């Protein structure tokens, strides 16, 4: 466990302002020079239910949630003290103090709202546990402070003031953020609440040893989520059309794009269902606009049919799949990596698509851009697969990382001048689907262009687009579409890898993961190395076409490899074994599927249990619900 860090958890019910308060707190810590990372946990409901956000702050780049936390700000149940809401939800609905104690580290701090929580509401063994764990408990009537200077809802601000006092944080960062985000009179009341709480707590005795580490970013930092990064990657790549239907967590990308597209000269459409959404993306792309759509598991299932149409008509589109825990509607607000096979193989016929699974915020940006480049360069659908974890987590990134020129090029698309020179059928019809291009890509025309007339058909078709069941034409078209995948693989291999190696190349053991668990695995590997294990990590992002050479090299170089993923059926390991079967005996699985992402310590423990304690075989370790999950 890293000693020198703050992991601040703010807990309450949905509707208590947990999200906005934690975002401001995170930003304040970033402005104070720290590296930050957030982990969100929330239920599928509008009000009430158990919600928390963890903000981890360290003096070094932070790419994972921590193991447990060391500071709890428990806001209490706002609803249970409103007679009307109490009648509706029941008094027992939210227990932000009780629910969060299991994961609080020894020596941790608790600030709870004594205005909302009487002694009788505390767990029976609270004092006992507090003493046994050396917790430092600060009951504070946050509600009263808030009411005195403004309104009851400002108790979050009081909680932040109390936090600042206990951790000796400079109030100016919070003050700045409140000024930026609030109307004048609201700000003034909040400022009074903040300072009053700060002063009250500062006057109390403190004997805890939690300190916020010091750090100073030398460069300009920004705080972004995976969904921010995907939306910005799409905008920078010239995406000017999005169609969608709301579904958690995909909605985060969809709303971001809908907010920005009109200013960027584009258009966003909320439509009747996901079949329509993906089909609209095809229509816009066919008419000459870079287009995207997306959804989460169940909505993506509806896109299976248009996905196949895009493949067959070679219409470039980018789809985003923000996975959440399945089966079916599963657990709408909880992360899981169970949609990999769904994304790889859904739709009839042979899969003819590209799938990226970014492992962190920066990769979400670069790989979304790459998805557009490949989609439009090769006339193929590209999918960005990520999950609820990466969607909502915030981390600080160097702003210069995004200081990139846009590349709006439509890819393999002809101008009218080029169309004049292009191959046409004897009938005068443009040969949109010629058999012969070496890399499989026949450049396209756009409706309205002179000389580019063709038919796009989801049926098998001739070079000019006529429906055809001719066997020779069929084989030629299938082979050409398949050729694209080889060339895409070559292009991806020839540039910066999307697979992220972490640790020394000659390590004896490996830990492999895909997508959003990358940062957590890397932190676990650092700890394993500190404990004397000779191990390295590989975070894999290219799912299709499969990065055969890179994975072969990695798996050849290690004696044993732990494959970490959040699902029950070992989908990523299954993909690796399908592609590179001979490495099967080297791999063991570590799985977690209780709705919460891995903590680094769980991976450390799983590695030791399966890989190095001598019990290695084709093992699958499944995580039972752990404390605090």
């Amino acid at each position, binding site marked *: 466990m890293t000693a020198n860090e703050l992991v601040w958890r703010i807990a309450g019910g949905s509707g208590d302002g947990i999200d906005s308060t934690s975002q401001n707190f995170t930003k304040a810590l970033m*402005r104070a020079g720290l590296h930050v990372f957030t982990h969100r946990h929330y239920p599928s409901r509008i009000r009430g239910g158990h919600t928390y956000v963890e903000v981890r702050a360290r003096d070094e780049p932070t790419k994972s949630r921590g193991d447990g936390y060391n500071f709890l700000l428990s806001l209490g149940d706002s609803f249970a003290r409103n007679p009307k809401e109490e009648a509706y939800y029941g008094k027992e609905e939210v227990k932000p103090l009780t629910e969060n104690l299991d994961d609080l580290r020894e020596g941790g701090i608790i600030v709870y709202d004594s205005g909302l929580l009487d002694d009788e509401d505390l767990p029976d063994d609270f004092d006992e546990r507090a003493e046994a764990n050396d917790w430092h408990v600060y009951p504070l009537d946050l509600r009263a402070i808030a009411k005195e200077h403004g309104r009851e809802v400002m108790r979050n601000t009081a909680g932040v003031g109390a936090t600042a006092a206990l951790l000796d944080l400079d109030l100016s960062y919070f003050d700045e953020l409140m000024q930026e985000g609030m109307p004048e009179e609201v700000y003034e009341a909040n400022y009074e609440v903040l300072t009053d709480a700060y002063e009250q707590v500062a006057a109390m005795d403190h004997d805890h040893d939690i300190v916020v580490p010091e750090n100073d970013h030398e460069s*300009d*930092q*920004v*705080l972004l989520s995976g969904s921010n990064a995907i939306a*910005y990657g799409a*905008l*920078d790549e*010239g995406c000017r*059309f999005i169609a969608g239907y709301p579904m958690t967590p995909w909605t985060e990308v969809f709303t971001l794009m809908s907010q920005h597209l*009109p*200013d960027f*000269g*584009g*258009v966003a*459409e909320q*439509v*009747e*269902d996901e*079949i*329509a*959404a993906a*089909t*609209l*993306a*095809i*229509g*816009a792309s*066919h*008419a*000459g*606009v870079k287009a995207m759509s997306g959804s989460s598991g169940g909505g993506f299932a509806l896109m299976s*049919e*248009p996905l196949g*149409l895009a493949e067959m008509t070679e219409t470039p589109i980018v789809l985003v799949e923000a996975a959440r825990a399945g089966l079916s509607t599963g657990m709408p607000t909880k992360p899981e990596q169970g949609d990999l096979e769904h994304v790889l193989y859904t739709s009839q016929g042979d899969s003819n698509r590209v799938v990226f699974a970014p492992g962190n915020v920066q990769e979400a940006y670069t790989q979304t851009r790459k998805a557009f480049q490949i989609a439009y360069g090769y006339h193929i659908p590209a999918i960005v697969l990520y999950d609820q974890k990466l969607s909502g987590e915030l981390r600080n990134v160097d*702003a210069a990382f*995004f200081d990139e020129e*846009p590349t*709006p*090029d*439509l890819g393999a*698309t002809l*101008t009218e001048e080029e169309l004049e020179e292009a191959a046409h*059928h*004897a*009938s005068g019809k443009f040969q949109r689907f010629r058999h012969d291009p070496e890399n499989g890509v026949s450049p396209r025309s756009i*409706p*309205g*262009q*002179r*000389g*580019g*007339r*063709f*038919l*796009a*058909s*989801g049926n098998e078709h001739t070079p000019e687009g*006529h*429906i055809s069941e001719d066997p020779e034409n069929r084989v030629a078209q299938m082979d050409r579409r398949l050729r694209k995948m080889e060339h895409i693989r070559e292009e991806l291999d020839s540039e910066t890898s999307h697979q992220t190696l972490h640790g020394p190349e000659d390590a004896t053991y490996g830990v492999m993961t895909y997508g959003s668990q990358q940062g957590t695995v890397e932190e676990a590997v650092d700890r394993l190395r500190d404990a004397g294990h000779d191990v390295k990590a590989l975070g894999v992002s290219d799912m299709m076409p499969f990065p055969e050479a890179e994975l072969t090299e990695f798996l050849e170089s290690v004696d044993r490899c732990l494959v970490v993923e959040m699902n029950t059926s070992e989908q990523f390991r299954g993909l690796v074994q399908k592609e590179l079967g001979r490495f099967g005996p080297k791999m063991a699985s570590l799985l977690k599927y209780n709705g919460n992402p891995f903590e680094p310590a769980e991976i450390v423990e799983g590695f030791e249990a399966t890989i190095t304690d001598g019990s290695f075989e084709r093992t699958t370790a499944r995580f039972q619900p752990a404390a605090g999950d």
Partner: protein
Amino acid sequence: MSAFNAIGQEREVDQNEFTPEIEPQATWCPGCGDFGVLKALKGAAAELGLDPEEILLVTGIGCSGKLSSYFESYGFHSIHGRSLPLARAAKLANPELTVIAAGGDGDGYGIGGNHFMHSARENHDMTYIVFNNEIFGLTKGQTSPTSPKGHKSKTQPQGSAKDPLRPLSMSLSAGASYVARTAAVNPNQAKEILVEAIQHDGFSHVDFLTQCPTWNKDARQYVPYIDIQQNEEYDFDITDRREAADAMYETESALWDGKVLTGRYFKQEDRRSYHEEKIATGAMPEDPIAEQYFDDDHEWKRSYDLLDAHR
């Protein structure tokens, strides 16, 4: 200058321009009403002076879906029931295109019913032609959403227990701004209605009665027909929603009894089409989005300018 030169050029057009130079062998049966739609569409496009390259014809699946193979223009033969969402997006990407969507009664009123309702509601500036032969043709004669009650087929051997759908009333209530019904057996009216529908600025729905001599055995299914505009008995104001609704109700009920009424039912001209509405609210740029990609001087905004909110 437009990047799409085929669009909006005034010219004299012969309807043969809409016949592919090497005509694919039509897979429609002899006597099929679909030929009537093809002919009427060619005639209408020629009369309007359209260039085959400024038209995007999007079709669904089924016999009707093959229209895009036999009509010379930019075409998209899409998937069952999905021609409308595809066409809608193409129109938003480039509103200067003439966008026509087509499909059958199973395609448009069955599997694509949801898209039909919402496309009409949004009033996209496009024409939607539904080949209505009251049967699934290409899958060999199953009961469709417009098949008469009691219709027997292999999938409904006891006869359909459902009343047929009322497509005209449906599109009116969903929000279409032009609604008409015509029939392949009435080629002059069919062409005139398609001309009007394509010219109409908004969602124009044409329910096109097409006889199916193979699966609806009576090849004279829609004969005799009555053109309501030519018949004094049917006098109503096509700009009045309530009168149109009454006329539609009567027409649809009459068809169930074997009496074929065709003509124009509703026309609303004081309503902006969807893309105009979006432009007016600032949700969409005035110039076609598609043109941006062909304009070397276009200034592309970048996400870096949005980062202030994240500092």
